[in-house]
């Protein structure tokens, strides 16, 4: 099941939510949402695919597009652009879905585009600034600064398990 682990064999243990205590650097998959660039732990990524037809689910929030068939597994698809209210949510042949393999479930997220895989060391990672209450920064673990780029590093596992995602019945935390 764990394709991600197979695809990216690494010897070091997986740090669930910790960005610190990294010596050799960690790899992040970066993607764009509108003008912003985000980074998520590559080990959580199972695969990247195009946007397929989804089956709508009644009374779900608008950012949950529905469920799709991923080789026999029913996978919910979440449009992060709608969730974060960033960019226009168009669906065409360039729309990208990142399939995440989280601790207990498989979830797909729709993003504007996938940029690249970056290896960031702790030197590159700055603590997440305090945005105040306007932005929910609980899921932001840090800011990755690489040359002129600013990556918002997101703990995708926590984000998806959050109650406002509506993916799980009860709140995890």
């Amino acid at each position, binding site marked *: 099941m764990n394709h991600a682990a197979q695809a990216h064999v690494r010897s070091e243990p997986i740090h669930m939510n910790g960005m610190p205590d990294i010596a050799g650097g960690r790899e992040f998959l970066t993607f764009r949402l509108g003008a912003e660039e985000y980074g998520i732990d590559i080990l959580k990524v199972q695969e990247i695919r195009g946007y397929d037809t989804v089956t709508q*689910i*009644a009374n779900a929030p608008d950012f949950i597009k529905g*469920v799709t068939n991923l080789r*026999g597994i*029913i996978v919910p698809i979440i449009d992060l652009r709608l969730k974060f209210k960033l960019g226009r949510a168009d669906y065409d042949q360039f729309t990208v879905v990142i399939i995440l393999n989280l601790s207990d*479930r*498989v979830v797909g997220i729709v993003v504007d585009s996938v940029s690249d895989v970056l290896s960031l060391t702790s030197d590159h990672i700055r603590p997440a600034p305090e945005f105040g209450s306007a932005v929910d920064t609980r899921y932001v673990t840090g800011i990755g600064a690489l040359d002129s780029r600013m990556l918002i590093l997101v703990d995708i596992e926590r984000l998806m398990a959050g109650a406002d995602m509506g993916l*799980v019945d009860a709140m995890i935390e």
Partner: protein
Amino acid sequence: MAVDMSQFYQVFFEETGEHLANMESLLLALDVAAPTDDDLNAIFRCAHSIKGGAGTFGFSDMAEVTHVLETLLDKIRKHELQLTAPMVDAFLRAGDVIRGQLGAHRGEGAADPDAATAVCATLEQLCDPEAQPGVELHPTRVKTILTICFSAPVDESATNLLAELGTLGEVEVVKRPRPRKTAPAKAGKWVLKLTADASPDRVRELIEFVAVAGTLKIEQSTACVPAESSAASDGSFGLFDSEELPVGSLAPAADAGGDASYGFFTDVAGAAEPASAGAGDSSYGFFTDLPAVQSPTPMVEAASSAPAHPPYGRRATDRPDVDVGIAGRRQTDKAVAATNGESSIRVSIDKVDKLINLVGELVITQSMLAQTASQVNSEAFERLHDGLNQLERNTRDLQESVMSIRMLPISFVFSRFPRVVRDVAGKLGKDVELKTVGEGTELDKGVIEKIADPLTHLVRNSLDHGIEMPEARVAAGKPARGTVTLRAYHQGGNIMVEVSDDGRGLNRERILAKAAERGMTVSETMSDQEVFKLIFAPGFSTADVVTDVSGRGVGMDVVKRNIEAMGGGVEIDSFPGQGTRITIRLPLTLAILDGLSVRVGQEIYIVPLTYIVESLQPNAQDIRTVAGDGLTVQVRGDYLPVLSAARIFNVGGECDRFDQNIMVIVEAEGQRMALAVDALVGQHQVVIKSLETNYRRVHGISGATIMGDGRVALILDVAGLVRLTRTRELLAA
């Protein structure tokens, strides 16, 4: 009827292992300060199931431990006692003990009777805190005082040694050398007094690491053996005497022994009684009625002597004339050999499901290929077409054989019941015949495994509460011998399993009274069906006496929950004086469903065929509104509530033009309803996939499936929708 029980041992072992694992994980997750009733009930049910199974198969040592465990759990569950951390520890330890016993029965290592005794004593004391507060938790078997003299330096190793000895028993330092500043490493003389039941050899081993060679002296002094425990070595304790006692024809020797083993927890006199009485509810009742009578000490002795003959109760029943102990042992060995040599393997359902999923995918891929290939020139690509045809045949065969892995005849479950009926009827002093009909009916292995527990509960209930004592039956003009019938048959896409008896039937007044007593909302005007449904409430029992057969109030709620979890249902029919029939409706398989696909807006939904009564296109004048909002449709004189699928699922179909719509009339939980959809698409067999694996539960949706084109279609939860309309009606009213 001679039934070889050994063929079910493996199943029992597996099930018990599962129950134990389940219990342990529940216990570990339990919040000691505020345990939820659900969790406590679940733990209790695990213990109850293990006890039931152990009792059925004659593993009396396991039944004993679980009985004590269950009694304590029951008190906690009923809030008579507050859960404490030591209790959880004791439960976990009891789980380990049972696991050890299970292993011993499986032929892997030997059970530790001392551990069982200790755990029983602990549980017993936790269960009844008032009784003899001074009694030690750990049974005093043979405690020895060892006086130990040796020379050793006063350093870390000595401290470690003291700690180590402390785990064995009580350590008293009589003399310890003074640490000298000048030469701290120099050895000094130690004198220790150890009160423990450890052998001197074990102590010697420990100390020899530390002591200066040749200085160790161990003296074994007064053994402080409590007066009572001398009885432990006495094999002729009341329990085993019962085998020789004259017993009625209803209770064969070993059976009576089994009874006694349940009874002897209560008190010594009670232990011998059931044997002569054949069976007596009263003796089981002692446990709860007279808790003060039981002192942990006699129980301890009995339990420690019991494992000396572990296999005696197993299958010795078939040959009461043979020396019981030896026969039991031999036959057990044979049983173990038989299970080892079986040519079948137990594979987890997950693996089979995965296989089924993959085959399902293969079928979809194959049909996609076939469709693509049909567009190319069949003459030019003849070989391709041949290959694809071959592929199609192979895929279909593969699918059939994968599906057949899961199908088993229901006799797999039914065949364990003759023994259950015989044992339970014997215990209760009733004369009961078991009839089985339709044993060849095949159903999914997943269903079979899950139906076993509920059926056992139902059969036991029928025997205990349904069938009357022979005299009462004769007095009522019925044959003295009662009949319990197990029947399985197909009906539509379902398997029906009936448990019926010709006993006294359910007592409506008593159920109502009990329900009122428990604070449930009841009224005299409720229909019989509604009244009978009350017995499915957790903890509901109309039995006056708690027996080890039934009456604790678990069972019916488990039955209902297990069956509903499988997508089935339970119905009760009962006539006073004529008997009770409990009908379980089960899906043929858990993995596949016959469904009608309907279109609502752009989406396709699957309506399980089992719920569908008919589909029709109504005339405009048949559709009326009620109170301006609620819609009804008239179908041959009946006014049914209309539920618009488009509105419920918010998918924007043509929901305002109901006369253009198709009404699918569905029926669930005895209520009919019209579901308005845009179009009927077709009838399919669909593979059920869980939506909850990666998403969460959605109201009105029971699952999802993948259609031939690879798209996902949601399966409607018709029962849930019916409930939804009902609550809406309530809100409106």
